[in-house]
C-alpha cells in the first residue's frame, strides 16, 4: 500500500492515514540484531521454503555437501591398464626399485594385485604357447644342460633330475613366451613370459633329490611328478620375501616387484596338496589346496585368502597339460 486514504473531515479527529503504512514501515525497520558469534551456526542458514519444491531444494543444497573424493591416480592407472588390456610394465630381474618411503598400506590391496595378475596372465595367454585349442601343446624335448643361460622360447624341456646340469643356470623368458622345465619325473616348473629364475642348486644325495631355485620376478607354476617322494625329496623356491617348500602339489608362485607407489611381494597359491611358506621375518604358513598367501616386501601383514581366479587358471592348465614322458 502506497499510503493511507483520507477520511471525511470531522469524522473522528480529522484527516488521518490508515495505520497500515506506518505499521509496515516500523516493522520493516525493526531488524533483529545478529546473535553473538558463540551462538551463531557455522552453516549457512537456508531460507524458509515457501513450497514443497523450495523445501526440496533446501535439502538438496545440504545433501550436495556430501562430496565424494576423486579416485587416486594410482587406482586409475591400475584399473585402466587391466581394463584396457594394456601390457603391464615389468621390472627387469634383479633391478629392484628402492623401497618406498611412504608408510605401508594399512591393508593388502588384493584387488590391485589381482588386476595386475590378470593383465599379466592375459598377456601370457594371448601371446604364449597355450593360446588356442588348436595349439598342439608343448613338445617335450630333452636337453643336455650346460649350466649356461637357457633362453625359453615357447618350449618345454626335460633335464635329467639326477644331474646338476642346470645348477647355477639363469632361466629367462623375457619376451619369449613361456617355458616348462621338467626335472626328470620329479618336478616340472613353468615360467610365464617375462620371468627369471635362478637355479641355485640341483643335487642328489642317496635317497634324496633337491632342487632350489630363486625367483626374483615373474610367475612360476610348479608341479610334483610321480617320482617325487614325500618327506625325502625337496623342492624349494625362494623369493625376496621368503621361501616356499613343496610337499607334493601343484602350486604357483608370483613375484611382484616393488613400484614407486606400492610394495611388491610374493603370492603363493596352491591347487593340490600343501606348500610351506616361510617369510624372512620368521612367519610361516601351511597353504593348502585352494588357498593362497601373499607376503609383502615391505613387511605388511601377510594376507591369506582363497586362490584368486587369475592364479587358479594357470595351475589347472599345467595340471591338465601333457605330461613329460615317464610321468
Amino acid at each position, binding site marked *: 500500500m502506497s499510503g493511507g486514504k483520507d477520511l471525511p473531515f470531522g469524522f473522528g479527529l480529522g484527516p488521518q492515514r490508515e495505520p497500515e503504512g506506518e505499521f509496515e514501515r516500523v516493522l520493516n525497520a525493526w531488524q533483529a540484531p545478529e546473535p553473538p558469534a*558463540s*551462538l551463531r*551456526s*557455522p*552453516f549457512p*542458514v*537456508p*531460507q*524458509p*521454503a515457501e513450497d*514443497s*519444491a523450495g*523445501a*526440496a*531444494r*533446501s*535439502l*538438496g*543444497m*545440504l*545433501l*550436495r*555437501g*556430501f*562430496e*565424494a*573424493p*576423486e*579416485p*587416486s591416480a594410482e*587406482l*586409475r592407472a*591400475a*584399473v*585402466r591398464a*587391466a*581394463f*584396457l*588390456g594394456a601390457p603391464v610394465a615389468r621390472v627387469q630381474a634383479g633391478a629392484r626399485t628402492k623401497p618406498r618411503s611412504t608408510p605401508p598400506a*594399512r*591393508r593388502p*590391496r*588384493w*584387488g*590391485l594385485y*589381482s*588386476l595386475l595378475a*590378470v593383465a599379466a596372465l592375459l598377456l601370457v595367454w594371448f601371446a604364449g604357447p597355450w593360446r588356442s585349442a588348436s595349439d598342439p601343446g608343448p613338445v617335450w624335448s630333452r636337453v643336455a644342460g650346460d649350466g649356461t643361460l637357457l633362453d625359453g622360447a615357447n618350449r618345454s624341456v626335460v633335464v635329467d633330475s639326477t644331474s646338476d646340469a642346470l645348477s647355477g643356470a639363469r632361466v629367462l623368458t623375457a619376451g619369449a613366451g613361456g617355458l616348462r622345465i621338467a626335472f626328470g619325473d620329479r618336478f616340472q616348473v613353468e615360467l610365464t613370459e617375462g620371468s627369471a629364475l635362478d637355479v641355485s642348486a640341483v643335487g642328489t644325495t642317496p635317497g634324496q633329490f633337491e632342487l632350489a631355485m630363486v625367483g626374483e620376478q615373474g610367475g612360476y607354476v610348479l608341479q610334483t611328478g610321480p617320482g617325487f617322494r614325500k618327506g625325502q625329496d625337496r623342492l624349494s623356491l625362494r623369493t625376496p620375501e621368503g621361501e616356499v617348500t613343496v610337499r607334493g602339489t601343484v602350486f604357483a608362485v608370483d613375484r611382484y616387484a616393488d613400484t614407486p607407489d606400492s610394495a611388491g611381494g610374493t603370492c603363493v597359491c596352491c591347487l593340490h596338496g600343501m606348500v610351506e611358506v616361510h617369510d624372512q621375518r620368521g612367519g610361516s604358513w601351511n597353504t593348502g589346496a585352494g588357498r593362497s598367501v601373499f607376503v609383502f616386501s615391505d613387511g605388511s601383514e601377510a594376507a591369506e585368502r582363497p586362490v584368486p581366479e587369475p592364479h587358479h587358471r594357470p595351475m589347472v592348465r599345467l595340471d591338465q597339460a601333457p605330461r613329460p614322458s615317464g610321468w
Partner: protein
Amino acid sequence: MTQTPESRSDAGPAPRPGPPDLSTAQRAALARRDPRALEEFFEAYFTPLYQYLWRMLGNVHQAEDLTQETFMQIHRNLERYDPARPLRPWVFTIATNLVRDLWRSAPHRAARSAEELEDAVGRERFEEERPGPAAVAEGREVGDQVAQAVADLPEALRTTFVLRFYQGLSFEEIAQAVERTEVAVRKRFSRALEQLRQDLAHLDPGGQGFLRGGKVH
C-alpha cells in the same frame, strides 16, 4: 508445459547428472570390446563408479577394491551385454551386486558389529559430558553429518537414494538395477528423503522446518 516424470516436484531434490549412456553404436562397439569403446567407457564411468562405491561403503580401500572388481566383471561380462539395452543400469547393477556381496560377507558383518559396539560404548561414556546443540553443530562439519545420515539409511534406501541423487539415474534405470518396480523405487526414494529430513533436522537452526514439508510421493 509438459512435465516428465523426472521433472515433477515430487521427485525431490534435483539429482546430479550421471555418467552418459553411450550411443547405440558405442555400446555395440563396447560389447565387441573395441579398444576405443573400452577407453571411452572407462573415461566416462571410472570416476562415477568409484564415487558411487565410496558413497555406498564410506571406505576408500573398499571402494578401490570394488572399483577394480567392478571393471573386471564388466570386462568379463561384456559379451553378455545387449547393446540394445541402456548401459547405465547394467553397469550399476554389477557395482550394486558387488556392494551387496560385500555387505553380506562375514568379515564385513563382523567389522560392523565391532563398530557398533564401539559406538555404544562411546555413547555411554559420552552421555554425561554431552555438549549442547550449538557445540555439536560447531564440532562437526555439515558434510560429515550428511555423510553419516546417508550412511544410516537402510541399505535398500541408501542404494536407491545414492543412485538417484548422486549418480543421476532415473527411477526406471534404478528399478532395472535393483530389480524392483519403478513404483517401489520411488517409494524407497521418498522414504530415504523423509528419513534424511528427520536426521538432518537439527541443522535447521531457526526451527522453521525448512527441511520439512517437502511433499514427496
